[in-house]
């Protein structure tokens, strides 16, 4: 029996364009208090459009029903566990949303005088200080809009330091276990990418690293804990190898939820790193963003951080644009400020001890799931798990059932699938990250579901292969979507 779910009415809903009727409106503007202007006469007839062809025409109630119905087709943390490995789908406290809508913050214009932006700047300064305490780094920029944007900023800062020494170098080393953003980032920063093979624990092979690091290597991009959820215990030795050859250690902080309050990258040889505020610090993912990817560096790299930077000037906060060695701007204005507000609210709610407890609970929850299912699935590595655990579908694959199928079957049990087929170094990988905000009850239900699916694989594999059975739609033909791309609605002809 599947304890978590029952069938539920899910209404059909056409696209907005199919719902539209000519002349319907859902808005009301105030009466204009100034004389109207003839648009064609003012802007030139050739600059004016006749109408926005195909644009929606619906009433207010149709609009809210439309989006509410669509919303019921989504899984979300608010509905249940979302154990996507590497994504840190923890509960998003609603106080974050409330404070981000504070009138004086939400409606602050980026060009209003600094004297009338002290509240916003103070928030940024306080968040900077908190993140530096958490990471053990020396300086930080809050500008990058997401993790990948942070990676790019971090690598550009590293490149600028190396260039200032006379040689930006040619390549960046990236473990084969890394997120796809790492190699893409290095390429955009103008570097060649050299992959390093991981050892059996998904860890950097220190001897191999020592062999590869030479005068052409600008940096190693490491994820710690790595994508197998294993802590890179040789982090200090790795840093020493790089530093001895004048190269830098970049840390992808996507997995900081395993470390906050327990290990500080800055204490262990990391030169530059990014954080994902939308992972570790609970700001919502919102179906794929907005995120925020602050970049923290050691003092040596601070002069190269993007402009502007916060500074204290006569007892007030100010923005400093006069930084000759800076890599320049990576984004207009000062970052995803609204996301920064939410992250600071989270840090304040937890305090130092609370953040550390969250880390301990995150590791406990991942370890508990591991122990709960390891008799039924093959663990990818014997090394202890930190905040996530990675299995392979090797045992189930012998029955023709693969990680994607098991993930889809989880939907019928009321759970979002884990991360499927990543990291690439584990064939048929199942990457599970529960986060600290799941209760023992939910973890037990999740374990029961995976154990039950393992049994189904043996006894009735078709049930798993054709899953999900309870979702609004069955499996989507993704091949067709890619072969004959239909990327927008068009009226039937």
């Amino acid at each position, binding site marked *: 029996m599947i304890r978590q779910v029952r069938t539920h009415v899910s209404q059909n809903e056409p696209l907005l364009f199919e719902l539209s009727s000519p*002349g319907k409106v859902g*808005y009301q503007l*105030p009466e*204009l208090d*100034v004389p109207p*202007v003839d648009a064609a006469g*003012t802007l030139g007839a050739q600059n*004016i459009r006749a109408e926005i062809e195909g*644009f929606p025409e619906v009433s*207010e109630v149709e609009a809210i029903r439309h*989006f*509410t119905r669509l919303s019921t*087709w*989504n899984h979300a*943390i608010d*509905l249940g566990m979302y154990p996507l490995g590497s994504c840190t789908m923890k509960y998003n406290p609603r106080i974050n949303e409330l*404070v981000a809508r*504070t009138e004086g913050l939400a*409606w602050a214009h980026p*060009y*209003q*005088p600094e004297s009338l932006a*002290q509240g916003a700047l103070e*928030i940024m300064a306080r968040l900077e200080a908190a993140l530096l305490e958490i990471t053990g780094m020396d300086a930080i920029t809050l500008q990058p809009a*997401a993790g*990948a944007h942070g990676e790019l900023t971090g690598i550009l800062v590293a490149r600028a330091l190396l260039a200032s020494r006379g040689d930006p170098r040619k390549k960046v080393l990236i473990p084969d276990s890394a997120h*796809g*953003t790492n*190699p*893409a980032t290095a*390429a955009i920063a103008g570097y060649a990418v050299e992959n390093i093979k991981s050892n059996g624990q998904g860890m950097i092979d220190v001897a191999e690293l020592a062999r590869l690091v030479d005068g052409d290597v600008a940096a190693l991009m490491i994820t710690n804990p790595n994508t197998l959820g294993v802590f890179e*215990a040789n982090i200090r030795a790795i840093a020493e190898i790089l530093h001895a050859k004048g190269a830098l250690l970049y840390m992808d902080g996507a997995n900081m939820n395993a470390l906050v309050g*327990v*290990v500080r990258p800055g204490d262990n040889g990391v030169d530059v790193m990014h954080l994902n505020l939308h992972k570790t610090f609970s700001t*919502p*993912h*919102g*179906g*794929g*963003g907005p995120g925020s990817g602050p970049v923290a560096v050691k003092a040596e790299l601070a002069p190269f951080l993007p402009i502007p930077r916060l500074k204290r000037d006569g007892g007030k906060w100010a923005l400093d644009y006069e930084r000759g060695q800076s890599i320049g701007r990576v*984004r*207009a204005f*000062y970052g995803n*400020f609204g996301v920064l507000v939410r992250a600071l609210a989270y*840090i304040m709610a*937890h305090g130092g001890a609370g*953040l*550390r407890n969250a880390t301990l609970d995150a*590791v406990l929850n991942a370890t*508990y799931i591991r122990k709960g299912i390891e008799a039924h699935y093959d663990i990818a590595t014997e090394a202890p798990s930190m905040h996530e655990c990675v299995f392979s579908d090797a045992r189930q694959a012998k029955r023709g059932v693969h990680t994607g199928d098991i993930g889809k079957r989880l939907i019928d049990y009321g759970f979002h699938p884990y991360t499927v087929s990543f990291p690439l170094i584990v064939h048929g990988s199942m990457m599970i990250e529960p986060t600290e905000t799941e209760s023992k009850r939910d973890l037990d239900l999740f374990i029961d579901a995976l154990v039950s699916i393992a049994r189904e694989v043996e006894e009735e594999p078709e049930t798993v292969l054709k899953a*999900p059975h309870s*979702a*609004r739609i*069955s499996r*989507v*033909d*993704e091949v067709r979507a890619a072969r004959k791309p239909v*990327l*927008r*609605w068009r009226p039937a002809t």
Partner: protein
Amino acid sequence: MLELCGVESLEGLFASLPPEVRLTKPLALGPGKSEYEILDYFRARGAENADGYASFLGAGVYRHYRPVLVDAVVSRGEFLTSYTPYQAEISQGILTSIFEFQTMMCQLTGMDVANASMYDGSTAVPEAAMMVARITGRKKVLVARTLHPEYREVLETYARNQGLEVVELGYEPASGALDLEDLAGKLDAGVAAAIVQSPNFFGVVENVNAAAELAHGAGALLVDVFTEAVALGLLAPPAGADIVAGELQSFAISPSYGGPFAGILATREKYMRQLPGRLVGESVDSRGNRAFCLTLATREQHIRRERATSNICTNQALIALMATVFMTVYGKQGLRELAAQNLAKAHYLAGKLPLRFSGPFFNEFAVTVDDPEAVNQALLERKIVGGLPLARFYPELGNAMLLCATETTRREDMDALAAAVGGTK
């Protein structure tokens, strides 16, 4: 739980970590705070900002009314707390809304295909520049000096490391519009594209099609950038452009001290596979129902790694949803009426002031003022944040100020501003 995990305490979970790497002291972040204390803190910070001021600032960030439906929709946990829709079967809500978003972006810009969003307008521009370099195999982009100055700075940062040459295009000192002669003179066989903004940073509506014709004549592409999306309700889509890069902040996104916003890139069908960022496509499920999913992922970093079109992963999905709700509420008729109100308000204000440029403008314009900083200082005492002194970005425009009026700008504030600047009542 501990017993099952085989440890005696939570600390035991970290036994495999070398002792020397561990933090031995507590984080100096103080104790946790209650909801009430947190709310109090942020309200106090909000009050330290320019709370309750009228404002004439635009310059890439605009103050438009946000219909209440927008917050009602994005506050739903099903949207707010979902992840990137990799699992289509339980993500049809966000996937359908993104498909609608992509469609509306095409309808507004006249392009064939639009992506699911970029971080913002400023980062959409370098993504467009890298895209035109891939398409043409050329390494030089011509960029209008009237493109938002901070966007140009972001482009410079990316271009430096991509080996792209950026050459600036001047503006006509009288009209404030792009200098087409300068464009014609700088186009050569090495130019991948010209990047222009309309309405430009001075608010002037550009002749994008004339610029496009010149660019195409030299085998280059034309990238049209917008920062004020409401203008699209009234302005003709840039028929000659090959790529449109824009900022959607005007569509229900509060200024929020500069972010989060949402950018877009839209283009012609033939360049679809060079587009960076996520795309949602229509397909069917195994029972033949219409269904949507992320598609053309072979362009993206998680498949293509170092050969991807971009490193972008997380985008601005929730912000794009806000824009989608905004466009739905206003709709075909409302967006036009909204744009017409902006046009009327700005021209009412402009009618009282000495204009710096003669080109046609939408809701922003530059005025000539003896001492912009002094005027702004005086206005602050009346709880009015004035305009942007253009000298901040254009040293040659020391006595000019950029002003913006939207549907939310009150007539009495415009009259007060005009009086302070020394215009007529």
